[in-house]
């Protein structure tokens, strides 16, 4: 009987302690991010759309070695090139990444020995128009030019990624 009363009181006490905790939590600020008005700031190296990087003069660093095309597990990169007659260098004509096939794994960036590719922070890629989801060389280069983090030594020091100012904007 006394043990029953002791159990009763200890139960009541634990209930009241729990209620005090919840009441305290009522007055703490919420942790909710009101998406889409607010967006979480993604860390460097977040694997968004792979983009083409340019050097200081604005030329693409890509030399069309096709290593990324071969590294891609889902074959979403399409590259066409031709050899320029005067400078004897390869020029990239077509560099398409199909964002619907891309699995954002970063193996293409890992494979590139020329720091020409990086994973950007672009994840707002939704579209009503399916062909617009195949990103061309110009579109990828334009995003790459918006980088606000260093575009050299991407694999060693930049965690395979770049960040573009303004976060992941809607396309």
């Amino acid at each position, binding site marked *: 009987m006394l043990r029953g009363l002791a159990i*009763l009181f200890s139960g009541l006490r634990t*209930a009241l302690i*729990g*209620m005090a*905790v*919840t009441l305290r*939590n*009522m007055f*703490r600020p919420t*942790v909710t991010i009101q998406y889409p008005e607010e967006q979480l700031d993604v860390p460097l190296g977040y694997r968004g759309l792979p983009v083409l990087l340019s050097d200081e003069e604005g030329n693409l660093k890509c030399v069309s070695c096709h290593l990324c095309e071969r590294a891609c597990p889902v074959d979403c990169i399409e590259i066409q090139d031709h050899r320029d007659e005067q400078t004897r260098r390869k020029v990239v004509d077509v560099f398409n990444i199909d964002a619907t096939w891309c699995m954002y794994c970063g193996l293409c960036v890992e494979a590139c020995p020329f720091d020409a590719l990086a994973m950007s922070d672009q994840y707002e890629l939704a579209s009503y128009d399916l062909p617009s989801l195949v990103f061309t060389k110009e579109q990828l280069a334009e995003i790459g030019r918006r980088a606000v983090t260093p575009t050299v030594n991407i694999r060693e020091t930049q965690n395979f990624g770049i960040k573009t100012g303004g976060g992941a904007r809607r396309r």
Partner: protein
Amino acid sequence: MYEWLLGTGMHPSLANVILGLAKAVLIITFLATSALILILMERKVAGRIQNRPGPNRLGPGGMFQTLADAIKLVSKEDIIPSGADKAVYLLAPVVIMAASTALWVVVPFGPSTAVQDLNIGLIYIAAVTGINVLAFLMAGWSSNNKWSLLGSMRSAAQLVSYEVALVLSLVAIGMMAGSLKLSDIIAAQQGGIQNWFIFPQMLGFIIFFIAGLAEANRAPFDLPEAESELVAGYNTEYSGFRWAVFFLAEYANLMVFSALTATFFLGGPAGPLLPPIVWFFIKTYAVIFVAMWIRWTLPRIRIDHLMNLGWYVLIPLALINLGWTGLYVLWRG
């Protein structure tokens, strides 16, 4: 109002009937709007306890969320299970709505303003809470579904057990006030906070509050409708508007037990400065907030623990409370 109707040359009996029907419509409207407010309040309180805002997209502060939910529920397909006992299945929401509404007849919104201030107010309350049991049994049995049946059997057992403790604490209140009329109970608590019955009846308050939570099927006593254990218990086969009626009745039940707690223990619709009906709502919503606070803090009680609590703990405590009340009333003179 009555005099105005008589002035039009109407027969007094007809005027009474019309007034009664008007009050009924008023109460049902009041219940529907309060359920709207209470559902939003529940979701906001739950959210804030869980460090999140609760509904805040539809309207300022999420005001229109419940309305949107109601519109969605009304537009759903009306499914009746093929093996269901059709008449009972269709009547169960009606019965529970009737039970929840009938309890509001004696609830005092003002010192002598109830829909009908019955002389046998306390007995009426004890009697009408029994209709809830019938409604749950009807819902579970007629659904032709083992989870519904289990849920409704558990619910019936729970309701019946906690009704004993509830009624015993009501008897103590009747003894304290010397009357069964709710307006007399309020009158006995006039004159300041020191006269509130919660102080001499602290044990009775705890018993009534806990038993009231169990009668309203609120957590931690919501095993009959536990989503994780019983799909939705007796609610499983009800979809769309019929489910909304059960939901409405649950919130009406919660509100009536909070209103009764405020009436019996916290002095009812009375207080300084503000009009009595405002105090009624303040006290009722304070008790409702405590009920919601408890719901979102405590885990669900297992069915055998629940029955133990009802029979082995609350009833002996209620009897002790009765003894104490008797002594107190004799000493008070």
